[in-house]
């Protein structure tokens, strides 16, 4: 069934017999049945829902006159379309309010746990799943949002689905899925100063392009990945969808287990030991076969920034934007269109470009480590006068933790505005939009045309690169500011 064109014997995981990859071990356990010459029926353990992609699915159920099949396996939150100021007040914008109200009503009718606005667990769906211990190794996790790939950082099969599929999971806890091909991306070696996990993934996407992993489940491995914290691993898996991957995953290890232990929905007591034994079997066997394998030297990665309108259009911050003769003839059209949108010239340097907004947030980079990274860099510094800085924590828990650690004071002293949790300017669905023509350096995951607001221009970068730009008012090389 699987097309095994390239077989590598590279071994980055503990040896074991059987020749199964991490992905296959989880996949095989969740197959209810396989349709001949067709997809498999895949059982889904956890389903996360939010206000934007669920209402039509509930309508579908109601039309069929059926209730949600396994409401206890669903967790809901309101994140995509909520204001990030004054969350205690009713939502002003009528359509957004209706959508959030529909979620409240639907969850109540179907017995689904909702962490809505005002709840201490509310937040971006991919931030709250892990922080509550809902996301665990070996599970299948889906959500009507493409960045569900984030949860793969725990060694889970996690992927985004459309609303019809949300309805399928609601009615039967299953999906019809074809098995993807398998790719392993190995990153080895020490990271350079000023380089963080966001730079790793932007570098990988710039190498293989925004469609380079379409049709694949991608396992990230290698010593560099092993040395990353759980939150940093989430940033990597989060953006695997930006190279087209069906999902991204990382084998669980002590880092993973330590992160989960003690969280709200983590297994307790005897159950914990039982799970731990099971989780420790979740790695790719030494003789597992991948359809494609890529090796990356961590030392080659510098702080990254995107210049174009898809996440594959990224370069090291010291580099110049490709000149026209470096671009494939077929791609010239899209390339020029993209630069025109961005108001940039082929061949010019990106460093020194003036920016107007800084957005630190989104399910890619809005966790406590991200806020700590930013606060420790800007401590005692002031933002540039003509720059507006929005910091949007990923969840109520992240917000509370930041306040407890006094990060809010440091950020405010630097002139940054700490807002309330939600997706915010990541997708510009609420009022947090970047005005037309303005430049925003953003820690989110998409630089598509209009993503942050009609005609807004986005540079994707790490929280560290965003922080330095906030201080200088320009795209800057963070390495020049570290001692």
């Amino acid at each position, binding site marked *: 069934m699987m097309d095994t064109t390239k077989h590598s014997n590279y071994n980055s995981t503990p040896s074991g017999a059987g020749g199964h990859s991490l992905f296959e071990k989880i996949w095989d356990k969740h197959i*209810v049945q396989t349709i001949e010459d067709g997809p498999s029926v895949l059982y889904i353990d956890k389903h996360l829902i939010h206000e934007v992609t669920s209402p039509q699915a509930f309508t579908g159920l109601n039309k069929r006159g059926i209730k949600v099949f396994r409401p206890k396996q669903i967790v809901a939150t309101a994140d995509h379309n909520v204001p990030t100021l004054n969350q205690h007040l009713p939502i002003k914008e009528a359509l957004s309010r209706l959508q959030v109200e529909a979620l409240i009503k639907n969850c109540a009718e179907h017995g689904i746990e909702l962490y809505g606005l005002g709840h201490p667990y509310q937040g971006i769906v991919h931030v709250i799943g892990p922080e509550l211990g809902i996301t665990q190794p070996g599970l299948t996790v889906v959500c*009507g949002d493409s960045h569900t790939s984030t949860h793969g950082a725990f060694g889970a099969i996690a992927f985004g689905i459309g609303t019809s599929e949300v309805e399928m999971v609601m009615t039967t806890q299953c999906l019809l899925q074809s098995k993807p091909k398998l790719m392993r991306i190995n990153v080895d070696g020490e990271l350079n100063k000023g380089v963080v996990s966001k730079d790793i993934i932007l570098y990988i996407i710039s190498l293989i392009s925004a*469609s380079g992993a379409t049709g694949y489940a991608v396992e990230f491995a290698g010593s560099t990945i092993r040395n990353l914290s759980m939150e940093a691993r989430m940033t990597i898996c989060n953006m695997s969808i930006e190279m087209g991957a069906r999902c991204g995953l990382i084998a669980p290890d002590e880092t993973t287990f330590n992160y989960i232990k003690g969280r709200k929905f983590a297994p307790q007591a005897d159950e914990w030991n039982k799970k731990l034994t099971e989780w420790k079997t979740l790695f790719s066997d030494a003789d597992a076969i991948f359809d494609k394998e890529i090796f990356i030297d961590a030392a080659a990665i510098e702080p990254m920034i995107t210049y174009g309108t898809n996440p594959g259009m990224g370069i090291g911050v010291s580099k110049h934007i490709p000149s026209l003769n470096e671009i494939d003839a077929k791609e010239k059209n899209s390339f020029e269109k993209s630069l025109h949108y961005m108001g940039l010239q082929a061949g010019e340097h990106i460093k020194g470009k003036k920016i107007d907004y800084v957005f630190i947030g989104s399910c890619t980079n809005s966790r406590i480590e991200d806020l700590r990274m930013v606060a420790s860099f800007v401590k005692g510094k002031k933002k540039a006068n003509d720059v507006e800085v929005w910091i949007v924590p990923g969840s109520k828990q992240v917000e509370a933790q930041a306040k407890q650690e006094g990060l809010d004071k440091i950020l405010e002293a630097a002139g940054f505005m700490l807002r309330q949790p939600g997706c915010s300017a990541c997708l510009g669905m609420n009022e947090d939009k970047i005005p*037309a023509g303005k430049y925003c350096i953003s820690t989110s995951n998409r630089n598509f045309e209009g993503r942050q607001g009609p005609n807004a221009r986005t540079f994707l970068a790490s929280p560290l690169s965003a922080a330095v730009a906030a201080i200088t008012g320009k795209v800057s090389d963070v390495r020049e500011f570290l001692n």
Partner: protein
Amino acid sequence: MSKAINIITSTIVPLHNENVDTDQIIPARFLKATSRDGFGKNLFRDWRYENDDETKPKKDFVLNNPIYSGKILVAGKNFGCGSSREHAAWAIKDAGFDVVVSSFFADIFKNNALNNFLLPVVVSDEFLQKIFAAVEKDSAAQLEINLKEQSIKLLAGGEQEIFEINHYKKTCLLNGYDDIDYLLSIKDKIEAFEISMNS
């Protein structure tokens, strides 16, 4: 419910862009509806109008060019990348398209399209260029897509290509079934699976 698909013959709307992402197909600010209907009028909204103003259509955008119309949208590679929003498929379907042709589709979009009886047809790069060349020469050029035969044909020149489609999905589209009907029909199997999983 949605209707079955077999043979579709139509003129073509050519969209030369590559990497058309779902934020272009339907910008996030139009996702506030709680029903599936009416997204077509906001299809490619920011490419269609100047400053979001419906009275100011952008002349150079293909959907605003009266010489192009039809049920088949033809686009450059990596169509539908980005967000999982099914609203993208709803918007294209609601705007009157039954088929999208490209040399490469993003995964989630492809599934979403199939679940809405919007047929994604993958052709070779060469064939894609042939289609673009044919409509450029004559905006009334027609394509014939035969799902049963899995063929796509330029009517004028007669050039044709065979496209791939999963056998199960093909059966669904030809018969107008959807995945939910199928999954509901095997519910006892699913329940048995749950028991075996937890034991």
